[in-house]
Structures are given as structure tokens and as C-alpha cells.
């Protein structure tokens, strides 16, 4: 060993530099050869190549049981997200406590914001005797400590497997005065072994609306001019919900967002910690019953809720994460139709500016091949936008995607000449996508942070445009919806394309003739 240390106070080496120093490289080599008993480099290289092959892809696609790197979470996190969009609402997750730690962590890592929710902390005895006492004590404690305006109850799979009855338990807890009798405690059963986070979102929204609107069908509910809008589980909710409200303002439409997390998930740093902030108020939620219509921005997040709205005599309209020019056109036309007001000139102007931007840059996107993955609605909206840009969506994949969804994607692809090489993969995961990309290469991947492993393996650049984004900061504060949102998405895609071209043309004297100043 030399006396010179790599680490120093002057220039502190971080992990990504420190471990590349020769002393560590030697240590790693020694550990590997003397202690790990791994496979030979040749064998690893051979298998590595095999995982990129058609043969491997066939085996990979023959999988029936194991799921590897899925694009879905479980129901309760979606339910929690939905509940957190209501004013002063504390999610109360009935079941094992570790789940709540996970949901809070996951949402916090994406939004870089505090995330509050409690658990009923059921343990082995509760598994045997049921969690009634946990509900009774839990509601009392949560109410006393965190002073919510509403507690929204959902379940972990543990409580579902043992069959705890939320309705009965909550009534029981109210009888025991855990919370006042008139205190709102909506609930939703959210079994993790059914659907995914988007189904949990649906269940919770329906649970909250049911709490205030009542269960019975009433097609003759008196109506106002208001239009409700349910955004769905959306990692860009902070930017998007604000953009929707701005659009409604331009329109002069009374638009009520049901579950608006935009303020709760974007509180200022001014010395005061706000445990709750903003959100749809209880009064607004009650009033929303009388809206003439409810729009869902994400069909697959609201299957049951929209049916429920219909039963209250509301007109309903559903979208699939509408993005881009025509996606936004359709949304605005629907708003115009439902409100009887024309699309305002200001938005038409924004549209023109967006189209102008696309025209300015279209050469860089035309014919570029993309893989897109994420929730079913996001995939649909993104695919549509790519087609509009002259790009070619090739692999469109969603673990939560159904056969119906696959057909929907196919229809979108079929409507454009740029969709001819595209195919939808419902119920598949990111390990399937790895095979797809190796065997049928694309130029870019659109997804979330988990896609960085695909980028590393396939060397196809990743563009992060959907939840969760853990390793880039603050993008969720900018909208992806509306013409302004489309412009943001466009810029994100273009930036990645330009960075990619620069990175591939930067070797001095070899490739840098194309290292163009002007692109």
C-alpha cells in the first residue's frame, strides 16, 4: 500500500468516485476471486448474451407465475393518494403497520414532500381475533393527535384475508366515541391481491363520494352547472391539477376537482410545517353530487366511480391521460360541450403556440422509435401524443393492462401510419420489456425511474414522464396536461434526444464533426 490516501478533506470523494480508486478495485477483485465462488467471467458473459436473444425472449414470454419488475403497486397506496386530495384528510390504513411505512416512503420519495398516514398496527393477536380494537383505539388516537377533518379508512391485505368488516368496525368505534358520531369516516376495502394502485384509487374515491352522496341510485338528483373532474393517480398531479384549474378559469367553467393533491403535495418552506394543505373540501365534495357531469382523466382509475356518478344522474366522460394537441383538443371540446361555453380564445392561442413548437422541432422526432410503459391510461395518452409527433410507439407495456386495454391501444396505433410497428403488452412487466427492447430495438424509452435499469442494460435513453420519479427532482411540479403540459413533455423528449446526439458525437477528432452548435 502506498502512503497516499485517495480520500481527503480538500476534495471529498463520493461513493461514485471513491470506489473506483485502485485500492478499492484491488479489494473488489480479491473478494470476488477468493470468497464469492461466483461463476466464471466467460459463463456470465455467455448468459448475459443469451438474455438478449430471441430464444430467451420466448422463454421469458412463456412465464406464467413469476412477475419481475412490474409496473404496478398495490391498492392501498392508490387509495391513500386519493384520500390525501381531500381537505384535512388523514388516511387510516387498517392492517399491518409496515405497509403504511412503505406507502408513505414511496410517495415521499417522488414528491419530495411529507406524507402523513396512520396504521391500525395489527399484529398476530389481531390476526386471530380481528382488528376491531385496533380500529377503536386507532381512530381515537388519530383523531386526538392529528386533528383531521376526515379520516379515510382503507385496508392492507392482512385485514382483507381475515375478513375485517370496515363498515361494522367504524360504526362500533363511533359507538365507543373514538370519533364524534357525525365525523366523516369514509372507507374502502382495498385488497392488494385484486387489481393495483389504480383500482385502490377508484375504490377510495367511490368510498368518499358514497359517504357524502349516499349509496342509493337517484337519476333525478337536482343539478347545477358545475362539472366535476377526477384526475386519477398521477405523479404529475401537482402541476396537472393546477393547470386544469387554470384552464377552467380561462373557460369560465366551474370545475370541481375531486381529490386535488396539488397543494398537499407541494407545500412551501416558510418555517411552518403543514400536515394538511389544500384539497377538495368536505363542502365541495358534498356539493359535487349536484354537478351536471363528471369527467375522469383516467378511465382505468375510475371504473366504479364513474358508474356511481351515473347512478346519481350525472353525465360522465372518460379520458385516458389525455396529452398533446388532439388529446387536449378532445378534453377542451368536452368541456365546451358540457358547459355550453366555447373554447376561449386564450386557449386557442396556446394551442397555436404548441403546434408551432412541434413544427419547429418535428424533424428530430419523426420516425424515432419509442417504448412506453406505465399505467394503462398513461400509456394510451403517451402513445397518442407520440403518434402526433410523427414518432413511432413500438412497445407499449403495462402490467395493469387488460385485454380490453390492449385493443384500445391497438385502435390508437391503427389510426396512424406511425403506429404500424407498435404492439400493446398488457399484464407484462419490465423484464419482458427488456427482452422486447433487445430483440426489437427502439431509440428511446418513456417510463419512470425504474426504467433506468433498462437504460443501463440496453443503452436506450430513458425519458422519465410517469410515477415514480425518484432520481430526478421537481418535474412533477410542471404539468403534462393541457397545451402547456404538452409543451413541457415535448421539451423533455427533445432535450433527451439532443443530449443523446451530443453524447454520441463528442469524441474529439473522431465524431465531433457532428457536434453541432445549432440543431
Amino acid at each position, binding site marked *: 500500500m502506498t*502512503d497516499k490516501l485517495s480520500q481527503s478533506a480538500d476534495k471529498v470523494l463520493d461513493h461514485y468516485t471513491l470506489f473506483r480508486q485502485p485500492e478499492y478495485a484491488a479489494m473488489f477483485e480479491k473478494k470476488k476471486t477468493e470468497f*464469492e465462488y461466483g461463476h466464471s467471467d466467460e459463463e456470465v458473459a455467455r448468459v448475459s448474451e443469451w438474455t438478449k436473444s430471441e430464444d430467451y425472449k420466448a422463454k421469458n414470454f412463456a412465464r406464467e407465475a413469476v*412477475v419481475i419488475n412490474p409496473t404496478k403497486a398495490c391498492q392501498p397506496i392508490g387509495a391513500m393518494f386519493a384520500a390525501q386530495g381531500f381537505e384535512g384528510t388523514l388516511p387510516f390504513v387498517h392492517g399491518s403497520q409496515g405497509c403504511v*411505512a412503505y406507502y408513505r416512503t414511496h410517495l415521499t420519495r417522488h414528491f419530495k414532500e411529507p406524507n402523513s398516514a396512520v*396504521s391500525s398496527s395489527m399484529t398476530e393477536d389481531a390476526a386471530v381475533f380481528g382488528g376491531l380494537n385496533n380500529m377503536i383505539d386507532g381512530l381515537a388516537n388519530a383523531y386526538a393527535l392529528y386533528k383531521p377533518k376526515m379520516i379515510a379508512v382503507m385496508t392492507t*391485505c392482512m385485514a382483507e384475508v*381475515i375478513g375485517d368488516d370496515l363498515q361494522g368496525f367504524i360504526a362500533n368505534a363511533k359507538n365507543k366515541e373514538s370519533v364524534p358520531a357525525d365525523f366523516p369516516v369514509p372507507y374502502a376495502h382495498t385488497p392488494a391481491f385484486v387489481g393495483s394502485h389504480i383500482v385502490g384509487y377508484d375504490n377510495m374515491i367511490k368510498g368518499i363520494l358514497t359517504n357524502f352522496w349516499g349509496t342509493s341510485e337517484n337519476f333525478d338528483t337536482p343539478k347545477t352547472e358545475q362539472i366535476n373532474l377526477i384526475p386519477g393517480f398521477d405523479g404529475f398531479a401537482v402541476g396537472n391539477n393546477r393547470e386544469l384549474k387554470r384552464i377552467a378559469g380561462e373557460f369560465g367553467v366551474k370545475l370541481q376537482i375531486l381529490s386535488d393533491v396539488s397543494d398537499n403535495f407541494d407545500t412551501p418552506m416558510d418555517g411552518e*410545517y403543514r400536515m394538511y394543505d389544500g384539497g377538495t373540501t368536505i363542502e365541495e365534495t358534498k356539493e359535487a353530487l349536484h354537478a351536471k357531469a363528471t369527467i375522469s382523466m383516467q378511465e382505468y382509475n375510475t371504473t366504479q366511480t364513474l358508474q356511481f356518478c351515473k347512478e346519481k344522474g350525472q353525465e360522465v366522460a372518460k379520458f385516458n391521460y389525455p396529452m398533446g394537441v388532439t388529446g387536449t383538443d378532445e378534453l377542451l371540446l368536452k368541456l365546451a360541450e358540457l358547459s355550453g361555453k366555447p373554447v376561449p380564445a386564450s386557449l386557442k392561442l396556446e394551442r397555436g403556440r404548441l403546434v408551432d413548437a412541434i413544427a419547429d422541432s418535428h424533424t428530430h422526432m419523426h420516425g424515432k422509435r419509442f417504448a412506453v410503459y406505465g399505467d394503462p391510461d398513461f400509456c394510451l395518452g403517451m402513445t397518442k401524443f407520440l403518434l402526433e409527433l410523427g414518432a413511432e410507439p413500438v412497445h407499449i407495456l403495462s402490467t395493469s393492462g387488460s385485454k380490453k386495454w390492449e385493443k384500445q391501444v391497438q385502435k390508437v396505433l391503427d389510426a396512424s401510419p406511425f403506429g404500424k410497428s407498435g404492439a400493446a403488452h398488457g399484464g407484462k412487466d419490465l423484464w419482458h420489456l427488456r427482452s422486447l427492447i433487445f430483440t426489437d430495438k427502439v431509440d428511446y424509452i418513456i417510463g419512470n425511474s425504474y426504467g433506468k435499469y433498462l437504460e443501463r442494460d440496453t443503452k436506450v435513453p430513458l425519458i422519465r414522464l410517469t410515477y415514480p420519479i425518484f432520481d430526478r427532482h421537481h418535474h412533477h411540479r410542471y404539468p403534462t396536461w393541457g397545451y402547456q403540459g404538452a409543451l413541457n413533455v415535448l421539451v423533455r423528449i427533445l432535450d433527451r434526444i439532443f443530449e443523446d446526439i451530443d453524447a454520441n458525437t463528442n469524441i474529439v477528432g473522431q465524431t465531433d464533426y457532428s457536434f453541432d452548435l445549432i440543431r
Partner: protein
Amino acid sequence: MSLSENTTVDVKNLVNEVLEAYPEKSRKRRAKHLNVLEAEAKDCGVKSNVKSIPGVMTIRGCAYAGSKGVVWGPIKDMIHISHGPVGCGYYSWSGRRNYYIGDTGVDSWGTMHFTSDFQEKDIVFGGDKKLHKVIEEINELFPLVNGISIQSECPIGLIGDDIEAVARAKSAEIGKPVIPVRCEGFRGVSQSLGHHIANDAIRDWVFEKTEPKADFVSTPYDVTIIGDYNIGGDAWSSRILLEEIGLRVIAQWSGDGTMAELENTPKAKVNLIHCYRSMNYIARHMEEKFNIPWMEYNFFGPSQIAESLRKIAALFDDKIKENAEKVIARYQPMVDAVIAKYKPRLDGKKVMIYVGGLRPRHVVDAYHDLGMEIIGTGYEFAHNDDYQRTPHYVKEGTLIYDDVTAFELEKFVEAMRPDLVASGIKEKYVFQKMGLPFRQMHSWDYSGPYHGYDGFAIFARDMDLAINNPVWGVMKAPF
């Protein structure tokens, strides 16, 4: 909540005030977990390792998190199946920064998420058949896998699946260890039981069923690193010091670890334990069964590192003892330079810590080395033996909080106004909103390593950048 202007705080009174907010039954229970450390105390005077109270926002996790997330997950050449619904594996996917070197997806699987993705029919009819299929598919698609663990999620224990039978059958069939772990999330009161269950699974399904490698040649200097998860490379910046003093680290448990390293561990001359909480069980077992002594050490901060190196060297011959002194001397100028640079910027700064495992006590002297002061500390999932080990590090008057609730921690911090809060991701933004510098002390806030001398430089730099960033100065609007 915003910060009060209190500068001197009657901590005992503060505890009582904070408890006032609870309903009576919960107040009595929580009171037993909060205390102010007394002079010459043998322990911290708090109750621990009991159930969290429902509805209070505990920061704890579950047994699955303790087994899959902590102990088993980092073993890189195995595939760990999150057995049950999709969520547990999804949320814990790549969350802990357990660094490893390997070809992910080919001979290592640390940053991947494998699940049996239970559907309703699996709950109703049982999941054993599916588990058979999952293991077959894994073995076909990942032929270089050196072992498979089955990490049970809540439903497994509730629906009566026999994962042990599946493990035995499949292990015989594929000729590789298949290890069932009964770490259902409802077991125990925190992640701690998950650590214990995971340790027991290694005892019963690795030590009992496998042998050390036949060609493994022992030396008198063989040691292991137990209870280091290589977060941000911690085990590496520790290993390098042990190697420098002339020891041979034959196994890392479990950061950057392999199946072979687990199997060869009974060949060690001494097991060196960093995270006592999560791995003392297996060390005690090896002491009883294989007569291998174990020793706790602490590689946070130069004072503890030097002390630990000397204690470790004392177990070996003079050559190792001399080497230890040489290594300490070799790093001393770098340590001095780090302290000279950062101590003036950090001296006297007050810290409140709330984390898990060993850190609520183990990191204390690293802060002291920088002139910083600990005014409160607590554990997520400690047992009494952790609280017995704590007074060695912290001084009289320190506020101690066991399984603190979000409410309590917020109130304590608000009143005590530390200069830095050192806790986890769920706490980070709460305190930053209040205008308080914060460092995540689970993930090292995506930095690290913090272990060893190389890690100390990073630790010192990180504490400085947290506390002395100009952002805190612009928090208040001038209008």
C-alpha cells in the same frame, strides 16, 4: 407547526406536555417509552420492543421489511421472492442502496423485484402451486442463481400455505438452496422480529443444510463483517481497514454478500458485528454451535474507529496489533484535516437522532468528533439490550424516545430546536419545512459511505452542507 423561540427547555416538562394530547389509555402506554437520561444510568429507562399503538403514526416497518429489506435482500447472487401480493416487493425495490458488484439480471439480482403477485384465487386456493412454478421459472430464466429465498408477505401465514414443503421439494429438484422465510408483516411488533426470523432461516436452511466450500483454506486471520448492509458502500470502506490491518474478511453479511460467504462463515476465527440489533442472533448461534467468538465494533467517526481497530487487533497477534497502530496513524492526517476543516463550522451544533438498528447510539461519537452535541435520540425497534448500550454514548439530560410517533417527534423538535435532525425519509420534509437542516441517516441521504475513515470525510462534509447551506437563510420572506 413552526418553531418556537425557546432556547432553554425543561425536557421532562416537555414530555409531559406532549403526552397531554393523547387519550388516557394511550398516554399511559406512551409515557413508558419516553425519558430523560439520568446520570450513571444503566439503561435509558424506557420500555421497548412492544406493540405500537394504533393510529399514532409510528415510523416502524414490519417483519418482511426486516427480513427481505434488511437481512436477505442484499445477498446478491440469490433471488429473493416477495411471496404474496405485488406491493411489498414493489415498495422495497431498490430502496436501501445496498451496493454490490455484479451483472444484474445475470449473476446478481439486488436491484430487481421478483414477486408471485398473488391474485384472489391464490388467496382462496392457496399459493403453493404457484410458488413451485415461480421457482421453476426463476431457475430457467436465471440459471446462474446460487439460491432462492421465499420472503413471506402477510397472507402466506394466514392462508396456511406450506412454503417449507415447497422449498424442500424445489431445492432437491434444482439442486440449489431454497430458503423459506416466515417473515409475514403482522409477526412481531416491528422490523426487528423479521431480522430474527431471517437469522433463524440462515441457521436452519443454510448452516444446517449446506457445508463450507470444500476447497476453502482457512488462515488464522479470518474474520467476517456481520450486520453491515453496504449502504452507499459502508461495508467496503470498513473491509478495506480490516484488510489493511492484516485480516482476511471471508464473508460480508449481507451487503455485497453471496451464498458462498454465508456458507463459509463457520470457518471464521471471529465474527465482527456492526449492527448488533439485526444480526446478534446468528452470531450467538455460531458462538454456541461452532465456538466462534463475536465482537461488536463501531466504524462511525475516528474515535470509535481507532478504538474498534485496537479492540479487534487485540484478538490477534502482535503483528496485527502493530498494523492497527500503523493504519490508525496512516489515516490520522486525513482525519485531522477533515476535523480542522469542518469542526469550526459544526462545533456546538445540536442534533436530534431518530433511526433504527445501531445508529441511535453508534453515530453519536462521530458527531462528537466534529464538536456536535446530541440532545435527543431514539430507536424505532430497539430491545432493552440496545438501551443498555446507549448511556455509554450519550450524556445525562438527553431526551430518549422509543418508537416515537410523528406527533411526538414534531413536538420535541419544535420545542428543543436542534440545529440538525438526523432521521429518515418520512421525517425529512416535515423538519425541512420548519426550516431545520436534515440528514437521512438510513440511506445517508443518497450519499455515503459513512463507515470507516473514508466514510468519515463524507459524513463530515454532509453534515456541514446540511447545516450551512444558504437556503435556510432565505426562508423568511422580507415582506
